[in-house]
């Protein structure tokens, strides 16, 4: 068993300031996106208005998953577990909405 902490030990020491700066940038981006989605909800864009809110939610969720939850730097097994959840949710939505949207169009 090799010492797996050698990677973190070889880096510069983690200071409180460095942690706040790295994560603070992500937090600022998340708040900007929140206020952007709030502002855009009052703009008349037809069906795009609700779509923009969902798209911004996806961007915010991606930032949290990849950076706060550190999925971007996680091992392949962890990425696979997260991806499994996403794939099943996507399947659930795709199959149900394929049916529902076809019915709404047909009536």
């Amino acid at each position, binding site marked *: 068993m090799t010492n797996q902490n050698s990677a973190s030990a070889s880096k510069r020491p983690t200071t409180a300031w460095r942690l706040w700066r790295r994560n*603070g940038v992500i937090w600022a981006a998340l708040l900007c996106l929140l206020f952007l989605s709030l502002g855009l909800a009052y703009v008349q864009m037809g069906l795009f208005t609700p779509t923009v809110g969902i798209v911004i939610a996806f961007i915010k969720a991606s930032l949290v998953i990849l950076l*706060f939850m550190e999925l971007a730097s996680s091992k392949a097994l962890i990425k696979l577990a997260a991806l499994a959840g996403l794939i099943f*949710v996507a399947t659930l939505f795709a199959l149900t909405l394929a049916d529902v949207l076809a019915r709404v169009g047909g009536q």
Partner: protein
Amino acid sequence: MSEVTGLLREPWEHFERQRGAGKFGIWVFLASEMLFFGALILTYAVCLIEHMDAFAAAGRETNIWYGTSNTAILLTSSLTMAVASQAAAAGQHLRRLVVACLTLTVALGLAFLVVKGFEYKEDLDKHLWPGAQFALHEPGAQLFYGLYWLITGVHAIHLTIGIALVGRLALLGHLKKLQLDENPEIEVTALYWHLVDIIWIFLYPLIYLPGRVS
């Protein structure tokens, strides 16, 4: 590695294996949570497609300021949780930072519940609980509020569990009864906390933003 051996539990022989298993386990659990909330949100989406106008009218009745403040509160709690988790994982004796960030996370979680409580009170005063006294007349508006109470309620239960878990770590860390450096419990708890935040990120545009264009 001497500090780390104190954290080693049965049946693992190596700490890194234990840590990897814990992280994999919580991600599998989070995947099941994605499906749980995914099904609820999908139900909402189907009702929305069938009652577009009623959902816009119902969404307009929600209090956007409570909703937006609570989103900002939860996003900030994810910041403090991430800093706590990374400071603990760094294993460089940042105990005070970890304890402070865990405590802040609990405080922000409680602040969310307090705001939500005021919001629920206002909703009840406006007769937005589905039933005979329901305030809106559009067919389908009761469906919106049925799902509103169900989904935000289940989310609040998840957040309450998160507050208890993070509060336990903060308390034990404060009393110096728990080794914080490289403790995988903090990382696993943080992952759960972030998921609860992510659920809310999706609920915000679905509940608070419809019907704002007039």
